Each structure stands twice: as C-alpha cells, then as structure tokens.
C-alpha cells in the first residue's frame, strides 16, 4: 500500500479549477519528485494533500485512509509534515521555539528529537536563541525543515526547498533530504532544480497545466530526450527563473 496517494485529484481555489485530475503515488521509503513549468499546479497539488483547497473530484489516501478535504491541523496530527514554498517559519520566534512549535502535537518529551535536529543542522544549534526571521535564506530553510521533522513524520512534503538558494546551500539541502530519506522517511518534493532532484529521486512526475504529463523513475525522466529539452535544458536557466522566489 502506498504511503501517500493522490488519485485523479480535481480542484482549485474558489471557482478557479487548477488541478484537472492529478495522480501521484509515494511508496514507503521513496523520494518522489514533482517537476513542471511555473504555474503548472505543483504547489497546488501538495496543498491538496493538506486540505488547503476544496477538492471537487478524486481522492487523497494516507496509508489507505481517505483524508480528502481533511483540514490542515488534522492532517498534521496524522503525521504528515509540509514545508511550504514561502512563509514557512515563524519569524519572530527563536530558532528553538520554531522547532518546539513543530512538535506542538507531540505529547511526549521531544528533547532527544531536538538534539537530533541540531545534529542534522549544526548552524541552527549555534543560533538557537536568535529570531528565525533574522537568519539567511538557507538557514531559514533549515529551520523550516527542522520544524517539520520534529514530528518524526510519516511522510515529508517539501515545496521547492532549494528555491533562491546559493549552489552551496542547495547541495546541503539535497544532502539533508537524502539523510532524512535514508532514516526511513518517505519524501514528496517539488523541485525547480530538476536535474539535481531527479538524480536522488526514486520516481518523478512532470505536471503541466494541472495534469500528469510524464511519469517514470528518476533515471528514465533524466534520460528522456523530450523532457530534457523541455525541463532540463539548462539548469542555470531554470535556476535563474526561480531566483528570489521563496526567499521572502
């Protein structure tokens, strides 16, 4: 049984339909990457899992349980963690308070987990009393991911975690994604740095205009001529388009 499954999901914002039947499957232990042009509905597809839009068709299943249109706080309580593309930290709270909030739904002592997160993101430990809003873009992304990981989630949803970051930070974030995955957490990730992302992906989906366009293993998509021409053309181009996005 897949950990997470979007089955022919149809929906959007208000009366505007954005997703016209999107299907995505994340199996236990997989990294799944979603790519596609700007405005394709990649973020919207993730929001569909989190009950952030009104779905008029299709289903969202978490380990087989129907969670279609479940409100966000309930989805979080089920152990699904989501790092939005923007506004993904509490800027006036300290780094440590952000991590504590990530553990809000935990009833047990999360101190050991806090130390694991600091081991995963050493720069955060040094700055744990600092207001998260004063950190650099890369460090903020670390706070956002650390906050989501506090729950030891059943699945982690990441929306463009490397958008607007320097190549150095981009590499760091990718290696952390690999570490988290190696520890057993399945990951669904939207990425603009398609080449780099597909390299670590078990499977990839290409969304265009709110529909599935291509599906395959990371390697298949990387080697596909058509996809290479459309989406992997120049990683620098892709990176340029997204510069500044998500840094706010």
């Amino acid at each position, binding site marked *: 049984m897949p950990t997470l499954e979007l089955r022919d999901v149809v929906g959007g914002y208000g009366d505007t339909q954005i997703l016209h039947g999107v299907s995505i499957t994340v199996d236990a232990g997989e990294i799944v990457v979603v790519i596609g042009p700007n405005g394709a509905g990649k973020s919207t597809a993730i929001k569909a899992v*989190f009950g952030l839009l009104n779905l008029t068709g299709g289903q969202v299943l978490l380990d087989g349980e129907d969670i279609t249109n479940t*409100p*966000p*706080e309930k989805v*979080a*309580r089920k152990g699904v963690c*989501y790092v*939005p593309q923007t*506004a*993904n*930290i*509490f*800027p*006036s*709270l300290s780094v440590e*308070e*952000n991590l*504590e*909030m*990530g553990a*809000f*739904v935990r009833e047990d002592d999360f101190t050991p987990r806090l130390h694991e997160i600091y081991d995963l993101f050493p720069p955060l430990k040094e700055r744990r009393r600092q207001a998260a809003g004063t950190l650099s873009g890369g460090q903020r992304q670390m706070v956002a991911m650390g*906050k989501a990981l506090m*729950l030891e989630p059943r699945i982690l949803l990441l929306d463009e975690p490397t958008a607007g970051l320097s190549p150095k930070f981009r590499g760091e974030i990718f290696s952390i994604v690999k570490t988290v995955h190696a520890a057993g957490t399945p990951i669904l990730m939207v990425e603009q740095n398609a080449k780099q992302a597909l390299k670590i992906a078990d499977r990839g989906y290409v969304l265009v205009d709110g529909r599935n366009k291509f599906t395959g293993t990371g390697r298949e998509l990387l080697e596909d001529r058509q996809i290479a021409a459309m989406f992997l053309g120049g990683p620098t181009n892709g990176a340029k388009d997204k510069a500044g996005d998500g840094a706010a």
Partner: protein
Amino acid sequence: MIDFIGDLVNFYLIPGLVLGSIYALGAIGLTMTFGILRFANFAHGETMTLGAYFAWTLVQLTGWHPIAVLPIAMGLTVLVVLGIDRGFYKPFRASPTIMLVIASFGMMLMVRSVVQFIWGVQMKAMVPGIQMPVVLFDWLRISPKHMMIIASVLVLMFAVHYLLTYTKIGKAMRAMSDSPELARLTGINTEAVIRATWIIGAALAAAAGVLLAVDTHVETMMGFKLLLPVFAATILGGIGRPYGAVAGGLVIGMAEELSSYPWIGTEPLLNPGYKAGVAFAIMVAMLIWRPSGLFRGKVY
C-alpha cells in the same frame, strides 16, 4: 531645583506612569486579538468597563478592597467574553475581517447598554474618601492607590511575560500572531490559542478597568474613553506585539500627562482638556510615518 523636579515627578510623571500602565494592560489584550484573530476589537473598551462594574459590585457585597476582589472581577469578565466569542465571533471565524470588526462594534453598543441597564448611568466611587499621599525623601509624594496600581500592573505584566516566553500555549500564541496559516499547517490547536487569547485579553482589560476606577471612579463610558489611547498604544507598539503594547501604553500615558506641564512659561503647554488629542495625534503620526510601530508589528 528639588521643587521643580518634585512637581514634575509628583504631578506629571507618576500620574503619567499610572495612566500609561493602565493603557498598557488594555493594549496587550487589544494587540493580541488583533494579531491572532486579525480584527480590531471595538468592544475591548466595554470589557474594561465590565471589569470595573463587576469589581464595584463585589466591593459592595463583600466590603473588601477593590484589589482584593480584582481576581474575581477578572474571572467573571473572562467568562462573559468567552461566551461572547462562542456566540458572536466564532461563527465569523472564516469570514472577512470587516465582518468581525462590525460585529465587535455592535457588541460594544450592546455591552454598554446592558451595563447601563443593570447598573444605571450615574458615576460611582470605587474607593470612598480621599487618601493622603505618602511622602518619601521629603519631596516624593505618592498616594497609596498609585502604589497599588503600579504594583498590580507589574505583577500582571510579569505573569504575561512568563506565559508568552515559557509556556507552550504562550509560544503558540506568538506563533499564530506571526502566521495563522503556518500555525494551522504545523498542527497548532488554533481554537485553543484563540481561547487563551480571549482569556488573557479579557483578564487584563478587566484589570485595566478596575485600576482606572480605583484611580478615578466607575462610569459607563470609561471603557469607551480608554479605547482611543489604547488603540494608539497598540499602533505605536506595533500590531501583534505585546511588549510593544506595554511600551506604547507607557509612552501615550506619559505624553498625555506631560503635554499639560508648563514647559514654556507658567501656563500648561496644552490645555488638559486636549489630553485625548495627544493620543490621537501620536496614532495618526505613526500610521503615516511608521505604520509597523516601534516593535515592527503587522501592517494591514
């Protein structure tokens, strides 16, 4: 020289501090409802009035000092405000802000009418008689009621500070004030945070009303008159910033009192009748030049 400093301190600074700390209590609640529920609560002034009337009634019933009945008055006010939230604001949780603002405006008129209906419109004295000030170091004169007001405010502020800094719900309140959307995504129990916000806001507002009544008297328009300086303090401090609200309250209170000090010549700089205008002027100036306030609050 001592006379000059003595006058300034005894007749302007201490009253300014007393008034300012009362504004601060009111502004903490207003700024938190603004930050967390995203609306300007016009009924906040009536919450203060309600607290004062509860305390007055308790004093009549028990014969205790107003400060002794303060916790009970705060508790009663909290119950009323939680009831109002359940009945009148909760149905609008997902509605546009303007509907909540208007609902709170209606609530302001309703609460005031109910207060006037129950207690009448005449002024009432909270503490009968006149108290002699205590003289310290030969020149510092401070009345016992002012000492009690400042001490009460300090206790309440430390309690709020502790709550916001060290408790889970307090941190969640600050988080939700930063971003309600992210708070929901994080799994924070937003209804619990809203309830905590009303409880703290109403308790502090009630305390502000009672303390103002101790300093002056009880009347049905007292909360409404507090509303302008408390809004000014909220905006000055930055919306959603409780520490800003404290600073804002103190600045507004001091500015109001010091504006009538005879800085030039022997006449008051500003006729004391225009005190309320000082708060208004500060509020307008902040909105024009620095709408995020001193502590970088939200801008809508």
